[in-house]
């Protein structure tokens, strides 16, 4: 419909973004070759020797890396489940309240934690759960329990991570369910009431079936995140005494690469994660497209 003369304008419009993409998205991908080289900072990436899959072989021999992959998947799966169920339940609960002022106020407050950084939330959590903090004080006065160093306890740590993540995100995650709930035709409820359906009956036969497709779609899309256990959160909350259960791929790569300077190994592990992640996301998007007609573009 449009002639070619518009093309030069289109490319001019795309130019700044494509430059940004080249320097800060594509250029770092060149560094991936470090995963296959014996990187020597003195020689630089280009002149270092190729060693093939040595880093990958070494990685699979490390006990560390098995533990780290296991921790990542456990935490990520628990988060996926929590972040799928809790926002939906909360949206359903709030949907039963008909006072607009009340629901608006509640929404404004529960969205709040999503906007705070993990640095801030970790700072607050470490304070609240510290040795002399309010949680330990209450446990002591009410239940006579000895104080616990919560975030230094390897058994508790994954649970604290999952619960605090669900706490931070459930309100924001509920937005999409609120939208789905408001799009239900009110006449259906009126008709059901005339037929004598109880509040519970209306919930199970009208409300739930209406939002189930949304839940299935979100669940499918979240499958791509199975290797993302949340770097920002764990990086700010963890410490060496919880490495056995709380160390994840991203934090391990950070320490191996930027603290211990094992550039090649860290790049290899990071690359493996990226490739597996890309495959998983592609699968979940394809499923979402096939079965829910969902497209991002």
């Amino acid at each position, binding site marked *: 419909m449009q002639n070619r003369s*518009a093309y030069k304008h289109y490319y001019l419009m795309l130019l700044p973004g494509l430059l940004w993409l080249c320097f800060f998205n594509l250029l770092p991908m060149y560094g991936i070759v470090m995963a296959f080289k014996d990187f020597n900072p003195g020689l630089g990436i280009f002149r270092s020797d190729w060693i093939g899959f040595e880093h990958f072989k070494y990685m699979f021999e490390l006990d560390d890396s098995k533990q780290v992959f296991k921790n990542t998947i456990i935490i990520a799966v628990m988060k996926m489940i929590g972040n799928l169920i809790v926002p939906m339940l909360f949206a359903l609960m709030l949907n039963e309240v008909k006072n607009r002022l009340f629901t608006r106020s509640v929404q404004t407050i529960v969205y*709040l934690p999503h906007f705070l950084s993990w640095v801030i939330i970790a700072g607050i959590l470490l304070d609240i759960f510290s040795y002399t903090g309010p949680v330990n*004080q209450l446990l002591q006065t009410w239940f006579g329990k000895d104080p616990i160093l919560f975030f230094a306890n390897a058994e508790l740590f994954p649970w604290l991570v999952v619960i605090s993540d669900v706490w931070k995100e459930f309100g924001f995650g509920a*937005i999409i369910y609120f939208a789905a709930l408001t799009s239900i035709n009110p006449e259906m409820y009126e008709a059901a009431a005339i037929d004598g359906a*109880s509040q519970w009956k209306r919930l199970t036969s009208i409300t739930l079936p209406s939002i189930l497709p949304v839940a299935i779609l979100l669940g499918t899309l979240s499958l791509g995140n199975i290797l993302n256990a949340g770097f920002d959160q764990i990086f700010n909350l963890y410490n060496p005494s919880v490495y056995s259960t709380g160390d994840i791929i991203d934090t391990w790569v950070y320490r191996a690469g930027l603290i211990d300077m094992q550039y090649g190994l860290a790049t290899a592990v990071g690359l493996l994660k990226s490739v597996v992640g890309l495959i998983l996301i592609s699968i979940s998007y394809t499923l979402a497209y096939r079965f829910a007609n*969902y497209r991002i573009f």
Partner: protein
Amino acid sequence: MIEERSLISKFYNGFNVILIIAITLLCILPVWYTLVVSLSDRAAVAAGNVFLFPKGFTFSSYETIISDSQFLRSFLISVQRVIYGTIITFIVVLLMAYPLSKTSKEFKHRNIIMWLLIFCMLFNGGIVPWFMTMKSLGLINSIWGLVLGGGLPVFNVILVMNFFRNLPKEMEESALIDGAGPWRILFGIFLPLSTPVIATILVFTIVGHWNEFFQALMIMTKNENYPLQSYIRQVTVTLDPSKVDAETAKRLTSLSNQTLNAAKIFISMLPLLVIYPFFQKYFVKGITLGSVKG
């Protein structure tokens, strides 16, 4: 709406409201506690006597912060970063979204570019190559490393592009007949209609830049170049409980300045607490805009 009169229903609704209130309080309580600690006396906090209301009410923490030059410097770096980042993102995303909103018939190369963007959104080289790139681009200790280092915000481009695609075609067609070029159509017709989606990407960008702390930890070699979040992390999250037995933990807590840290944390979240309710109606729309149903 239909009123339910039965006793069970009343009981259920009352219980539901109480549970919602409890959950809501749980969301605000940590923020409230931080404010309370920041306004309390140091000794009372260290002894673990402060819960829901300040003990020994004082503004001394806030007075200390005003004269803390590192805090102020980090605050200003964060403000600068947010301003640069938001302006650049706004311009780049807007310009990119327009040609990409064309069909592949109108703009033949559109699909190739789109797939390139999607690939870059879903795949990256990891942090080690990223750090090497920043180094070779000479962005160590530079604020531009923080502004641009996150890469092209592809998701925002997609949001705006999808919004453009859903605008009525007729407006653009009549403008074309009047002889308007792509620039006039974008800035004269599309932009004024796009307030909800623009507001959405602006709030995502502002919050993202304000909250980001990790890139600065990597590329800033001097603490004085830290933005606020990296600075806060440095003063609050550095205690290592593994090396701490019960006695040392107590001693450390009384040594570390909890009230001052709480005041720093509170100030650092204040800008977001103030702006986000104003953006609420937009990002609620923006989230549901994220997808097109085919």
